[in-house]
């Protein structure tokens, strides 16, 4: 076959012009140095990664290096990276980017990351990979920026949108690929329209559940690889096939997707120790809890589930929420009763669970991260800990970038405790801490895994201890006993859970549980329904474990 050969004709005219200008000429030593540099930097062969040699201060894990090799050599730089949380997808993407930069295949790069991760990307690329990446500001000049990090939301908004779509990117990385599952969204169409040579999608939420999700993601990476949307639907929807059960499809997908799981990495992960700490309400507290239950029992339209849950967390959370209900509700039905409850809440002493947390932390010199579902609880806990002489910082997903970084640093260097709400589950790494308190349990095990993933990830050198607090004789006891303990969720890595839930056609476990509580007429009924739910889940966990091992 004939291969086009480009020759450096410009050099010939440059040479003829400059050979007569002595000040443009160099001496032998410099001439030789330049040649030596070229010899040193040349890419010896097609396959071996050259970038690790340029990053002597980094050690890559075998699965990370393998991932970069696979993406570059076998997938030609277009792939879906779907490692489980905490295995270092950013590191893998950084290594791939570095390799392409060194090989001179890539100059212009666009990275789209969640707002909470933009700074971390910049930090990792600059500090670890020595890649001069910038974060986008208000007046970013997209044409001049060579390696730039921003959010999908910023990028798809005018005036940025048009400017970005005009650029020829050599490499685009999207680190929020779950936002691209639906091909009819603006997000999807924007990313599809980007001009890009190499392309990586990163996701921690495995997408194998819904075949159309994975179809859409893969069609961004390699249009046509899985056929057209209609072809695909016809083939797979009709037969209700699942990817796991279709070896052909599975194999196809494995050529554009890298998915490492903890157990495949061969790394010794530190252990998880789980401790359940039971709390008992004081008599007054128990009375208020029961009162909330009774008040709502007669009312068909409202359920006490939310308020009871809040009450288990803190007086404040429940109080504020009841107050809000009073202000917005038009029904007069139980107004008086609610006001009565609120008055009784005002009289309560400190919350039993909060006191327990303070006691637990006080006994230790270690750092703790405490997760709660409610902001009111978050602030109350901070105040209570302060009374006990324990310095604590708070952290929320809604904080601005700078504040988040600052809080993380305060926690690392000064405070003993970080109190975070759910939104903080994604995006920060806190490997320096190895004690986690679930002040209240989320009813969605995936969220629980994300919480734990903040500290139990690569780089954690200690065993991780997880304390779960639950209040006796409340819904918490039921969720703990009937759900979490039954499916031994804490010990298992939850990787497969979302697949199981999908099989059960149960997208939102949290809703499911709320419904069980709301619709059951007696404690006995709740118990039976919860037991059914957990036994189904745990039998599927067993099945899954059997399949994969």
């Amino acid at each position, binding site marked *: 076959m004939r*291969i086009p*050969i480009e020759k*450096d004709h410009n050099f010939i005219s*440059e040479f003829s012009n400059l050979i007569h200008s002595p000040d443009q000429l160099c001496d*032998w030593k410099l*001439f030789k140095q330049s040649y030596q540099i070229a010899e040193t930097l040349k890419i010896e062969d097609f396959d071996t990664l050259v970038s690790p040699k340029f990053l002597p201060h980094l050690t890559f894990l075998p699965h990370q290096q393998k991932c970069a090799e696979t993406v*570059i050599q076998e997938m*030609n730089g277009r792939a879906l990276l779907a490692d489980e949380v905490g295995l270092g997808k950013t590191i893998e993407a950084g290594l791939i980017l570095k390799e392409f930069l060194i090989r001179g295949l890539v100059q212009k790069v666009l990275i789209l990351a969640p707002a909470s991760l933009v700074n971390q990307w910049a930090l990792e690329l600059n500090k670890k990979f020595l890649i001069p990446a910038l974060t986008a500001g208000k007046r970013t000049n997209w044409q001049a920026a060579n390696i730039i990090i921003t959010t999908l939301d910023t990028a798809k908004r005018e005036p940025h949108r048009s400017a970005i779509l005009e650029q020829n990117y050599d490499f685009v990385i999207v680190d929020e690929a779950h936002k691209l599952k639906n091909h009819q969204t603006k997000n999807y169409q924007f990313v599809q329209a980007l001009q890009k040579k190499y392309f990586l999608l990163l996701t921690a939420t495995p997408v194998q559940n819904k075949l159309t999700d994975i179809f859409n993601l893969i069609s961004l990476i390699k249009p046509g*690889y899985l056929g057209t949307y209609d072809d695909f639907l016809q083939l797979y929807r009709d037969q209700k096939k699942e990817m796991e059960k279709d070896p052909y499809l599975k194999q196809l997908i494995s050529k554009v997707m890298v998915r490492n799981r903890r157990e495949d990495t061969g790394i010794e992960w530190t252990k998880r120790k789980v401790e359940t700490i039971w709390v008992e309400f004081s008599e007054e507290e128990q009375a208020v809890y029961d009162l909330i239950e009774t008040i709502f029992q007669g009312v068909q339209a409202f359920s006490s589930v939310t308020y009871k849950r809040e009450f288990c967390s803190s007086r404040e959370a429940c109080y504020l929420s009841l107050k809000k209900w009073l202000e917005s509700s038009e029904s007069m039905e139980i107004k008086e009763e609610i006001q009565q409850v609120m008055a009784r809440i005002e009289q309560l002493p400190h919350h039993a669970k909060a006191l327990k947390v303070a006691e637990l932390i006080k006994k230790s010199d270690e750092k703790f991260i405490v997760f709660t579902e409610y902001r009111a609880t978050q602030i109350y806990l901070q105040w209570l800990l302060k009374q006990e002489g324990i310095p604590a910082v708070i952290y929320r997903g809604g904080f601005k970038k700078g504040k988040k970084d600052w809080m993380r640093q305060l926690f690392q260097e000064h405070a003993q405790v970080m109190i975070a709400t759910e939104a903080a589950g994604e995006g920060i790494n806190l490997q320096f801490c190895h004690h986690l308190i679930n002040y209240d349990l989320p009813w969605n095990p995936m969220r629980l895994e994300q919480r734990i993933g903040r500290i139990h990830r690569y780089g954690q050198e200690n065993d991780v201890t997880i304390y779960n607090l639950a209040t006796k004789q409340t819904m918490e006891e039921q969720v703990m006993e009937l759900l979490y303990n039954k499916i031994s969720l804490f010990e298992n890595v939850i990787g497969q859970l979302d697949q199981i839930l999908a099989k059960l056609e149960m997208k939102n476990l949290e809703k499911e549980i709320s419904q069980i509580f709301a619709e059951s007429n007696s404690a006995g009924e709740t118990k039976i329904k919860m037991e059914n739910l957990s036994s189904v889940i745990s039998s599927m966990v067993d099945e899954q474990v059997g399949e994969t091992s």
Partner: protein
Amino acid sequence: MKLTNLHQFLHDFFTIQDCAVREETEHTLEVQLTRELDQALMNRPFYWHYMDKMGQQGVPMSLSLNTSPEKLDDQKEWIHFGSPRLQQIFSYIQDKARITLLYEQTDGEMKTSLLPWLVVNVKMEYFGKQKKDHIQSIGLQLINGTMLTNMMLKLDSLPLQRVMSDYSYTISPLIKPSSGFYRIFQYFEEKLSNEDMYWASDAQKALEDERKLLEHFFSKNDDLSDLYEQELYRVKERLEPKISLKVINAGLFYLSENTNASIISQ
């Protein structure tokens, strides 16, 4: 001619650039930069602009480097093969050392004639699914057309200088340097035509496969024809095999008859 001793390389570089070495140990190097290097490396254009405006000389900075393979916990800047500083120095050298005109130093009082050689260092870049490079140093004698490979190694032991020694004189080329370049490119083309191009067939096949996929994917949707063109362009850019011949640097070298005889017979 790979660079193996980075410390020595940097020491040589700064010395060639007339920078005084202030302190040096096995793995550290502190140099006083000249104004030129300060401007090239220290990234402070406003300082120099300001000094020039004020009619002041300005004080170039000094650079304190740690050249060991390990990062040390001290004030010195760690320089290694991936570090931005070294990249900067490399590109400075590559920019300054594109072209040269050198004469072999001769001694004695005998009249000596010097014969012209065109030396061209070429990087061949192979773009397939991946990329690799191959480097060759070619010397072309511009009187009789002798062509040699590994020319840099052959020149390395010679005393070469920017000015001609007394009593030496040059013989004018019979082959013009520009035609010399064409001969050298010609040589590469012939050489390449005998190489096994399996990598190019691989890339071509991958390209063909992806092109078919694209065609199928977009076939049922005429609205997306722009997108199809764009994707196709990008696939080609990624996979179309090609070779590029880039000149690293080149020079005109005048060498004595003795040297001519000895390097040709080597």
